[in-house]
């Protein structure tokens, strides 16, 4: 019992320390409003709404943002100026920033409430499906753009393989893998470790302790930080903010499903019935695949199979690298809120959205997707 009491003591001390520092690190919310919607399996998820700038030209379709694993909606913004949703909203886009279940402002599992007995597939069949339907209902638009980071991109790939792309106008993924090979020993270790540990726990809590750790981020440049972002592109205030606010709890079931999937080398549903990667062949809406040259967590090679499999005739691969004219070789997290992201990444996103914002007309009218939506 002694080691357990020591662990509990340390955890409590970290949590209390975090509570003390929180007022120094907290930032006001960037969104204009937050709306809630309940999924079919009774989880309440949050959509943070950024109203389109009044002076900007009106756009044809709303934009849905989806964060990755162990993150929440705050991952998209380092501050007011380095914020994907705020950047797009200023330029007239109606942006909806999703919090998946269990993180951010969405309903969280608890000891006396719901348990975190969900997996990756629930994000696809419940959260994404509900969010898309809700955004289309509220905006009256026939389709929506989807921008996903990391697992947020994997979710939309799986969604398309499961339901098709009839509610989507375009898809953008940033640092989203569909295979996980050629990686560091750290990730290989996690792949081996995760299935065993997640048999015994339901949630990996991070939020109670991150406020305590956040002030220490950036004090010493470590390889851990360089693993997740390019330190040249992510100054200390940004890093502290993302650790404090943007990283969130992780459901063990999600980690287990992803670890099992990738160890086995196939990106499929939990029951193996749907091959999410092969399902991209049916995709017809435009696809932009973005990746950071300096991304240690998700290597560029891990994102390429999705680009290659996607059946859409309109697709583009964009690698954010110094050799391509960008300021830095982008890492995993700084693709979203990095110092140079407003100059390198955000305009690329906006150009893609603008180019594919008119009424959807399938490029292969004889193909299976024949919807033509004219507002």
């Amino acid at each position, binding site marked *: 019992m002694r080691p357990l009491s020591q662990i509990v003591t340390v955890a409590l001390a970290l949590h209390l320390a975090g509570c003390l520092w929180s007022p120094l690190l907290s930032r006001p919310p960037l969104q204009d409003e937050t709306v809630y919607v309940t999924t079919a399996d009774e989880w309440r998820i949050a959509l943070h709404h950024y109203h389109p700038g009044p002076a900007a030209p009106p756009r044809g379709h709303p934009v849905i943002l989806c964060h990755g694993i162990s993150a929440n909606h705050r991952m998209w913004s380092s501050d007011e100026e380095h914020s994907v949703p705020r950047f797009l909203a200023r330029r007239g886009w109606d942006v909806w920033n999703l919090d998946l279940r269990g993180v951010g402002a969405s309903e969280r599992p608890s000891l006396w409430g719901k348990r975190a007995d969900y997996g990756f597939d629930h994000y696809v069949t419940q959260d994404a499906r509900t969010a898309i339907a809700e955004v289309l209902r509220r905006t009256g638009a026939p389709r929506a753009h989807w921008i996903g980071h990391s697992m947020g991109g994997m979710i939309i790939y799986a969604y398309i393989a499961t339901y098709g792309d009839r509610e989507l106008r375009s898809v953008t993924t940033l640092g989203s893998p569909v295979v996980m090979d050629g990686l560091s020993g750290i990730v290989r270790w996690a792949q081996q470790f995760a299935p065993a540990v997640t048999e015994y726990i339901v949630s990996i809590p991070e939020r109670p302790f991150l406020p305590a750790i956040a002030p220490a981020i950036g004090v010493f440049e470590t*390889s851990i930080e360089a693993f997740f972002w390019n330190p040249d592109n992510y100054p200390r205030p940004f890093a502290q903010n993302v650790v404090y606010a943007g990283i969130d709890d992780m459901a063990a079931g999600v980690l287990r499903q992803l670890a099992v999937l990738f160890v086995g080398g196939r990106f499929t549903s939990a029951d193996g019935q749907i091959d999410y990667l092969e399902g991209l062949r049916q995709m017809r809406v435009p696809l932009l695949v973005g990746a950071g*040259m*300096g991304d240690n967590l998700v290597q560029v090679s891990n994102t*390429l199979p999705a680009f290659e499999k996607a059946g859409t005739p309109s697709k583009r691969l964009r690698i954010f*690298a110094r*050799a391509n004219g960008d300021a830095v070789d982008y890492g995993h997290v700084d693709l979203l809120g990095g110092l140079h992201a407003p100059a390198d990444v955000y305009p690329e996103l906006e150009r893609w959205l603008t180019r594919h914002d008119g009424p959807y007309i399938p490029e292969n009218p004889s193909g299976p997707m024949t919807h033509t939506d004219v507002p």
Partner: protein
Amino acid sequence: MKRLALAFSYLLFFVWACAGPTQVMRTRIETADGAMYLRHYRNAENPAVVIIGSPGISSQIFDVPAYGGLATFLYADGFDVWVVDWGNLPRVANRKRLSEALGAAIRYVGEKSNRRLCVIAHSLGGVLAIDVSARPEIERYVFIAVPGRLAYPLDPIAAWANQPVAMEPRSLRELLGTEGRPGTRGRLLDALLWSGGVEPLRPDVLETFLLPVGPALLQELQEAIRIGGWGSAWEARLAALNAPATVLVGQADALAPPWQTYSLYQRLGSVQKRYQYFSRGMGENREYGHLSILVGEGARREVYPVIAEALQ
């Protein structure tokens, strides 16, 4: 005073030369297109290593400790080291001729050393090493920044692949010198060859390393980039290669980026193979690019030990 200064500089040079390997022999190998050379750091009875650099990059980078000096490092570590110096061949020969010359050189080394060889190959040197991989002398490979398939090249490389080739030999510096936006030439070369790490790019050093390559080879390189690979025969040799192999790359390598090098690793037929990339996120002190993975103090401290270990 002048004579004194001159004498002193000669003395310094003598001391520096003495500090180097005590036995460095240079062998000339005649080919159909001219001569190439082998520099031999002799360590009799020790494992033999052949270092094959890219035809467009001076083999000096393997000799001079001030630039890193992989050959001198391995020699000090007890290896019997042979360095391939392409001479003037890249100015006139195409890939097939270079491969044949390399095959002759490896055969020579095998006969002279009378034991099996380890091959360390960098960049295009690795592509040529696979062209001759059927040679029985070779028992182990270390591939450094060697692209397998050439899918998704970065923008400057893709753009160059569709340009007409000059009829005169051109170095990479000259090929890229007129590219890009005004004022960005240095930055582009830095991004393509060096890295964004701590050691700054020195243009004078870079220009020393980059050698002219003739139109025959340049056209073949452009064709390879356009079709995305080195040909089906090369792929077959890669799949048939069964000697143990280690594949290394810098995360910031924009000339042979990690996804291209990883495709080499995936297609290697070797059962015993290992892939490793170098970056700050992996614990290294700096980022490594196409050239800086072999040159500089950082490479000497962080990359060379990995290479030496792979040869064991």
